[in-house]
């Protein structure tokens, strides 16, 4: 996907290998021109092979300014664009992709456009992989403002780190007066097959329920028929490219949306009467993904000067016994260690094997079936908002559904 903002058009007339062409210049670099010919075809031409007969700068087509608020007849929903391909659109004349500037891009593309009063807020676009705690805070404040004057909020987000952002928002909102739904697209919006529109359609429906949780809404399967509602703190991107990449880990989805409407499948927290945002986040935390090659030195570096270290251990929650003395020592110095499993599915249980018991005695605290990434984000929230003598209890406590007491061997995908 090309992202560009230039709006003027350069028309070229040239010869190349003895043939004469006309076209529009789409891009150029040190060596080549990328030209769109008058028959629509694109050609990449070396600078030294082109013979330009005529070059003509034209100002590009006017962007029609869309209304910022479109009054449907239904509930007011705030749409927040935080970046990612979902909140962008393609200019077919050049193939360039730009952020949307109004809700008009949804008209005709989602079937429930007229059922809502939509307000669009565009934050400075950030690639999903570039999101940091600062961006989470910016989004959180924007969501907070959105909740104040609408029934629910839909955040359009890049998919790469969407689950991290969802966790961050989930912890930061102690109370929320409406649903906070994150959605994205796995097929970029510059293709007709994009999953973006059905994801937004479903998200708007979810955003108008009485849900009081931060959730992710994405495709359930490969068909454009069903959108899953997934609890943010139990969701992980499990495939790099499929549109059904987002999976609820260890339990079923909360709800499904299809043309037949919404079907809730699990109990959920209902929305609160007011909003309470605690947007402080501690950044001195780290995630150590244990592997047999990890050196003691690297382990120490990753833990050093941190307040909390989340270990993604093997199996039921183990790291090599060679790290036990280091952990014991750092633990005594005040660094907190929390154990999760790199298996992704299932819970840690550090009573079963002696290594687990050793680690507990060295100071490691098991976090049940909390996902490693969620534990990392949770530690940022807990360490910024609670006293040091409360942090362990808070980390172990189920604050937002991030820990599941029960994992059942039926219904939904369990591994």
């Amino acid at each position, binding site marked *: *996907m*090309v992202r560009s903002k230039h709006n003027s058009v350069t028309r070229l007339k040239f010869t*190349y*290998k*003895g*043939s004469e062409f006309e076209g529009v210049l*789409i*891009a150029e670099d040190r060596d*080549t021109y*990328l030209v*769109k*010919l*008058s*028959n*629509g*075809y*694109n*050609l*990449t*031409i*070396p600078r030294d*092979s082109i013979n330009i007969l005529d070059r003509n700068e034209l100002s590009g*087509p006017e962007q*029609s300014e*869309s209304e910022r608020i479109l009054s449907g007849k239904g509930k007011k929903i705030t749409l927040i664009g935080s970046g990612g391909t979902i909140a962008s*659109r*393609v*200019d*077919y*004349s*050049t*193939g360039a992709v730009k952020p949307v500037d*109004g809700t*008009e*891009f949804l*008209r*005709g*593309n989602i079937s429930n456009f007229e059922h809502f009063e939509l307000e669009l807020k565009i934050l400075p676009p950030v690639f999903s992989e570039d999101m940091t705690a600062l961006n989470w805070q910016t989004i959180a404040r924007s969501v907070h403002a959105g909740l104040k004057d609408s029934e629910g909020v839909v955040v359009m987000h890049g998919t790469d780190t969407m689950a991290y952002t969802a966790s961050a928002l989930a912890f930061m909102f102690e109370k929320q007066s409406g649903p906070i739904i994150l959605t994205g697209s796995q*097929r970029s*919006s*510059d*293709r*007709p*097959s*994009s999953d973006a*529109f*059905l994801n937004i359609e479903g998200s708007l429906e979810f955003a108008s329920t009485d849900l009081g949780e931060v959730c992710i809404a994405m495709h359930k399967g*490969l*068909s*454009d*028929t069903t959108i899953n509602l997934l609890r943010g703190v139990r969701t992980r991107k499990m495939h*790099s*490219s*499929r*549109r059904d990449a987002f999976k609820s880990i260890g339990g079923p989805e909360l709800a499904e949306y299809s043309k037949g409407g919404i079907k809730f499948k699990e109990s959920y927290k209902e929305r609160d009467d007011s909003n309470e945002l605690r947007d402080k986040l501690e950044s001195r935390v780290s995630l150590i993904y244990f592997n047999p090659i990890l050196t003691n030195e690297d382990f120490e570096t990753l833990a050093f000067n941190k307040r909390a270290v989340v270990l993604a251990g093997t199996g039921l929650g183990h790291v090599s016994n060679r790290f036990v003395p280091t952990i014991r020592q750092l633990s005594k110095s005040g660094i907190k260690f929390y154990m999760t499993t790199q298996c992704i599915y299932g819970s840690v249980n550090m009573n079963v094997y002696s290594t687990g018991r050793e680690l507990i005695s060295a100071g490691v605290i098991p976090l049940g079936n909390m996902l490693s990434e969620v534990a990392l984000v949770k530690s940022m929230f807990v360490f910024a908002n609670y006293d040091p003598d409360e942090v362990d209890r808070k980390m172990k406590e189920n604050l937002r559904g991030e820990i599941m007491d029960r994992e059942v061997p039926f219904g939904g995908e369990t591994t």
Partner: protein
Amino acid sequence: MSNERKQKIGLEVHIQLQGEKLFCRCPTESSYELKEVVERSLRLSSGETGKFDQAAKYETQRSRGFIYHLHGNNCLVDVDEEPPHDVNNQALERSIALSMSLNCSIVDYATFMRKIVIDGSNTTGFQRTAIIGFGGFLETSRGKVRISTVCLEEDAARKLSDNAGAATYSLERLGIPLVEISTEPDIIDAAHAIETAEKIGKLALLPGWARKGAEAIRQDVNFSSGFGRVEIKGVQKISLIETCLDYESRRHSTLAEISSKIKSGFDPEKIHFIDVTGIFEDTKSKIILSGLRSGNKVYATVLPSMKGYLKNGNYRLGAEIADITRLYGAGGIMHSDELPGYGVEKEITPIISILKPNKNDAFAILVSGEEKIQIIAEEIRNRISRILSLDLSETRFVDDSGITHYLRPLPGRERMYPETDVATVPIGSSIIEQCKKIVPKSEDQMIADLTKAYAISKQDATSIINKGFTDSFKKLTELTGDARLSSRILNQLIPEITKKGSTPVLPGAVVEAVEMSFSIGIVSSGLERALLRHFVDGVSFADLSGMPDLQAVSHNELEKIIKDLISNENDVTMANLIPRIKARENRIFDPKDAVNIFKMLSQK
């Protein structure tokens, strides 16, 4: 035809390359076994510059769901669940080599772009295509036909069914490398078009690059007689080229006639569908009854100034309208040029009293769902206006009988933009050198080469080449040392075996059988007989090896036999020598050798 002079004909020849798909490593071939079904919809980013392609926009208006059937040669890429992989190198090289054989310039970079196609035939909503060569030409018997471009693209999915609700496609064809060769409109007539299409097709067919099967090579025909360009899609059979060009040419000239007669009287705004369902409550028309039962309504409209032009002799304006209504799933129309008919009779008077047509006006009845009647009316107004102003440019398709039908407006350039998921491939000198080595020769050149090298007839060479038997022929000739025998085996014996036997025999099997035959002592002159017995009668090589009429008598044995003849039969002469030997010996012998031996012995 009087206006043949003004006709311009061009071709787009599409050739499927066999091997792997263009952007994934799935094989092009597959057993046809349904593995999975996926449902999709396709959308265009609207709210854009407003200039997005009209063909694409047109499809959006017909928006439906798409159902895709996945097969063994489909992967995540085919179903748009994974970005494209690197381009298939073999296909790229072959497309370059084909461009070279068509005297094209080769691009410095293969730049893939997306051509928006949202009729569902591509799961992505676009077809990936890149120009590989341009500015070439093909020699034909009637002069050069210029080649505008050679493109390498993905083949589309095959449509299985098309209902109002959803179109169903099978994906086993999607993504197969397709070389698209477009000519300039230099083609003189249908015969010339056929020659051109065949010559181009054989460039890929003869070296075995093209896939086998009916759809491996398809033509689109471009036609113009001065009223805009018509692109006729899907002319799979060469034989349809002539029929459809003929049809289209007549269509243009009659439409020109109609236009000159009624253009001035045509007011598109008079086309307006009125709900006349009430009139048909107890109709005898089975077509209408079945439509009503499905929840549709009956509509009628005036067709201004069209009386006598809808279906009257050569005039077929009714068909032009029905093409539209059928595309929207509303079935055909019933119009006043053919009414009473279809069981509609008593309803005519009430309809006329409602529509109040003028003297020259026709009218039409249509059964349709309520939700789409407005868009159908709009499309009919637009299309008839364009036809009567003699802008006939559009995309059409040809049916099995060679008749063409409206498909969609011509695509515009708007619908192409860069495919950034695929890195631009530089075509450097090493690739160019590699490709030069494999440039396919034209059929004529191949025939000439084979005729010359093996001293066989041009007819035999043509047959060998066109059957793809060149390699087998060369191998056979190496074995037999006799090119004509080899040719006879391939061109005559194989069809004979296939005709007599139960299953067709492949040249590879024949070459193997010849090798085997020689190894058990069967002589060249017994070879054809041996092969027939083996393949048709199922005689094993063990049994063949014992059959005297396939074995040769050695020189020494022959000498012994003749000596014996001479000593025992006094009347042996040169004239009766051969029959006398045959009477004693079933095996094959060389008559010349016998004569020489007899001469020698009698001289003694």
